[in-house]
Structures are given as structure tokens and as C-alpha cells.
């Protein structure tokens, strides 16, 4: 296609955007919000994935001792851990500390804990990490059996179990993300189709006359497709910008869950950002194509 024709069609698209500023702004705004929802979901998924992969590199266990077991049981377990080659107890959370953490975590709803039976039912927890070079899967099972044999020990959860649960959660998120992404894509398409339709309606006289003086369908359609592309580019860029700002805000402060600091927040990798941006442009163009194809019969 000749350059001056491309320039002409692009100018027509810009004129269309200017002439229907409010409609376009509403369309771009709604598209941005939809893409942002998907972007946040992507951010959550990427971070969970990173954390789970991080757990894969480390072996750890959590030992829970019943609250009524008393100090001798705790000492016996600590003794067992100390004697187990490659194991190290890195943190102990007493049932009182666990209760305080829970109270802080519950905030305004902490009164519900007042109804708990006395004594404090929360277990004492001991977090144990293993040197991966000295311990394998069989050793972990042996550790688990050994600790569980101590009377008063409630449960031993190995990192393998955590990883399994996290993977199950990731699978749920992956399916949920696909469904959510699909629904949002349909929503975005609907928005673009209707925005472009409104633009077409407002310029139907011009379209009709252009056709009467010999414009081909594509000559008339192209500016609308370009409008859809511009909508896609602007809303894609806006949503990625807001997503990045949100990431900066999130990563600037320590994120705690149940008063426990969780791992560092990572941003969505470039290839996914590019895919999100390209998806936004494609949705813009495809939406316009649907709108013009359903409208044109001059």
C-alpha cells in the first residue's frame, strides 16, 4: 500500500478518535480495567509459581506439638532434631505466641478468640530446615516417623506436602486464570465492538457517501480497524503501567501473611507482558473487525 494512503487512513482514524472522544475514553477505560484485572491475576500466579519453585530448592518441615503437651515434650523433640543429621530447628512459635499472632492477624475480629476453650488450643510449632546435600526423601520420612513417635506431637508437615498443596493451588489458579482470561477477553471484545459501532453510527453518512463515490469496503473499514488498534495499544499500555506501579507499591513494603513475612514479590516476566500487550492490540483490532463486518452493507 502507498505511504500517502496509509497516512490518509491513519489521519481518518485519528479524526474518528477525536470526534468521539468521550465514547473512546469510556471504551479505553473499561478495556484498561479488564486487562488490569487479568494482569493482577497474572502477577499473583507468577509470584505463587516463583515461591513454590523456591520451596522446591529447600527442604523443611513443621512440627506441631499439642498445647497440653508441656515443656518436656518440646525439649524431647528439640533433642531429636538436634540429633538428626542435617536438620536444624530455625524457629519455635509457642502456643501463646501463635495466639498473639492470630489476634494481630484477625484485627477487629480478634474477639472471636475469646470464646476459645481454655487452655489455649493452638499447638506449639517448630520449623526445621534440612541441608539438601545431606538429606533425601527417605531421610525426611524417617524424620517424620521419628518425631511423630514422640507422645504429644500432633502433626509433622514436610515441605513435600506443602509443595503438593501449593501445586494443587497453582493448578486451580491456572484453570481459574484461563476461565477468567477467556471471560475478560469476551468482555473486552464486547466493549470494543460497541465502541466502534457507536463511532460507525456517528459517521454513517460519511461512510455512505464515500461508498457512493467509489470507496472500497476496505478503504472505509481500515480507519475503524486502526481505531480499534489504537484503543488496544492505549489500554494495553495503561494497564501495564498501572500494573507496574502497583508492583512497585507492593514490593516497597514487606508483605506479611498471618504476621509472617512472605517471600519477595516479583514482576510479571517480559514475555508475558508482551503477550498481554499483543493480546490487547489483537482484541482491539478483532473487536473492530466484528463491528465493521456486521455493519457494512452500503
Amino acid at each position, binding site marked *: 500500500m*502507498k505511504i500517502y494512503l496509509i497516512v490518509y487512513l491513519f489521519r481518518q482514524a485519528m479524526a474518528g478518535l477525536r470526534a468521539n472522544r468521550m465514547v473512546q475514553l469510556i471504551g479505553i477505560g473499561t478495556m484498561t480495567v479488564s486487562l488490569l484485572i487479568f494482569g493482577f491475576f497474572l502477577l499473583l500466579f507468577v509470584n505463587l509459581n516463583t515461591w513454590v519453585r523456591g520451596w522446591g530448592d529447600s527442604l523443611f518441615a513443621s512440627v506441631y506439638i499439642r498445647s497440653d503437651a508441656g515443656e518436656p515434650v518440646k525439649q524431647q523433640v528439640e533433642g531429636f532434631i538436634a540429633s538428626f543429621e542435617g536438620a536444624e530447628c530455625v524457629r519455635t512459635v509457642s502456643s501463646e505466641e501463635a495466639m498473639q499472632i492470630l489476634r494481630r492477624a484477625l484485627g477487629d475480629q480478634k474477639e472471636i478468640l475469646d470464646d476459645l476453650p481454655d487452655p489455649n488450643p493452638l499447638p506449639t510449632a517448630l520449623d526445621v530446615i534440612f541441608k539438601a546435600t545431606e538429606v533425601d526423601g527417605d531421610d525426611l520420612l524417617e524424620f517424620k516417623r521419628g518425631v511423630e513417635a514422640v507422645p504429644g506431637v500432633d502433626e509433622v508437615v514436610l515441605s513435600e506436602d506443602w509443595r503438593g498443596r501449593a501445586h494443587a493451588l497453582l493448578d486451580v489458579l491456572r484453570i481459574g486464570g484461563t476461565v477468567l482470561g477467556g471471560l475478560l477477553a469476551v468482555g473486552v471484545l464486547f466493549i470494543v465492538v460497541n465502541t466502534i459501532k457507536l463511532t460507525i453510527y456517528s459517521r454513517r*453518512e*460519511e461512510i*455512505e*457517501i464515500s*461508498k*457512493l*463515490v*467509489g470507496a*472500497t469496503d476496505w478503504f472505509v473499514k481500515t480507519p475503524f480497524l486502526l481505531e480499534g488498534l489504537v484503543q488496544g495499544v492505549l489500554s494495553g499500555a495503561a494497564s501495564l503501567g498501572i500494573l507496574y506501579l502497583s508492583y512497585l507499591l507492593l514490593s516497597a513494603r514487606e508483605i506479611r501473611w498471618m504476621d509472617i513475612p512472605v517471600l519477595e514479590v516479583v514482576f510479571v516476566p517480559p514475555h508475558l507482558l508482551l503477550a498481554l500487550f499483543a493480546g490487547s492490540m489483537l482484541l482491539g483490532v478483532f473487536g473492530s473487525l466484528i463491528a465493521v463486518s456486521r455493519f457494512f452493507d452500503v
Partner: protein
Amino acid sequence: MIQLFRLSKSFGACVALKDVNLTLNTGEFIFLTGPSGAGKTTLLRLIFGSEKPTSGGILIHGINLSRISRSNLDLLRRKIGFVFQDFKLLPGKTVFENVALALEVCGERPGVIRKKTHQTLRSLGLADKESMFPLELSGGEQQRVAIARAIVKDPLILLADEPTGNLDWDLTLEIMHVLRKIQAKGTTVIIATHNRELLEEMGHRRIRLDRGAVLDDP
């Protein structure tokens, strides 16, 4: 050459044209005349391809309009100028932009568009109205803009539906002079009119229609 074979057009129960057979030669200047409702506008619209015949056929330079594809019809329309009775000017565009549109849709270069548009507007006495909007012009001036848009692309066929309906006699003759100049370049000019004075003044072929049928074609 334009050939019409047993051409009929009905809108529901209303018969607009029936069994019209005509041959319009290249470079001819033809008046379609007859009372209102005789079928003049319908005949022009059928030649333009904006209406499909109920039966019969139209050949334009050997191209059968009944079998032409949508995209080829668009291309054919670039060779046909149409002056609409209601002008069909875009109120949001200036006089210059309205006329230039006919060249823009053909993919002409910007320089060519500027030059030809200026020339055409000058030839119709609209040089000082270029930057005005249609609604700022009189009826006669709007009509001249519509004619300018139809002739700016040097069409092979020029169809005009009552092109002098809003013009005074002097301007009517001036417009006829312009259309004759277009014809002199080889364009077939077909004008629908019921202006008897004009028909008397001009000595061209006259096809008289009445109730959808050709009544007289000397």
C-alpha cells in the same frame, strides 16, 4: 456504451420501470425527461448500481451490472459521477474536503487531489468558497459543490438528477456549459430533468419517460 435490456424495476406492488430498452452511446449528452414519478431517478440509480433491477439487464462498456462483484462495483463507481438531487454533501467537511473526497477514495496522491480540486472548484465559480461548510452556502452553491464532486475525477459517465433544480437561469446555462465541456472530453452525460426551458434551449437527445416506460426517444 450503456445498454439497457428489457429493464424493469418494482418496489413492492409499485412498478417504477417496465421493459425499458435503450442504448446510450459513449460521449452522448442525454436528457431523461418526464413528470415526477416517471422513473427518471430509478433509471439513474440502476445505471449507478445502487439499485438492482427486478428483471432485465444493464451493460456498461460491456460489463454486466447483474453479475458484477461488490468490489468491482466500487471500482466501477470511480468511473461514474453522480449528482444527487439532495446533494449528499457532508456538513462537517469544507467545500474543498467534500470535493476532494471523491479523489481520496480513489487513492490519488495528495498533490494531485489539491490541484484537481482547486481547478474544478474554480471552473464552477466556487474558488472563494473552498473553506466554507455546505450549510453556509446557498442551495445553488451547494448544488455546484455536488457537481464539482461528481466531475472532479473525470468520470466516463456522469449521471445528474435535477442538477439545475435550485439554480437561476444564468447559472443553469453556466452549469450546462461546464457539463458540455465534460462531455467534450468523452464523458457520457445523462441528466434527469423536467425543466422544459432547459430542454428547449439545449438540443440534445431527449428520452421521455412516463409511468416507468419509454414514451419517446427520437
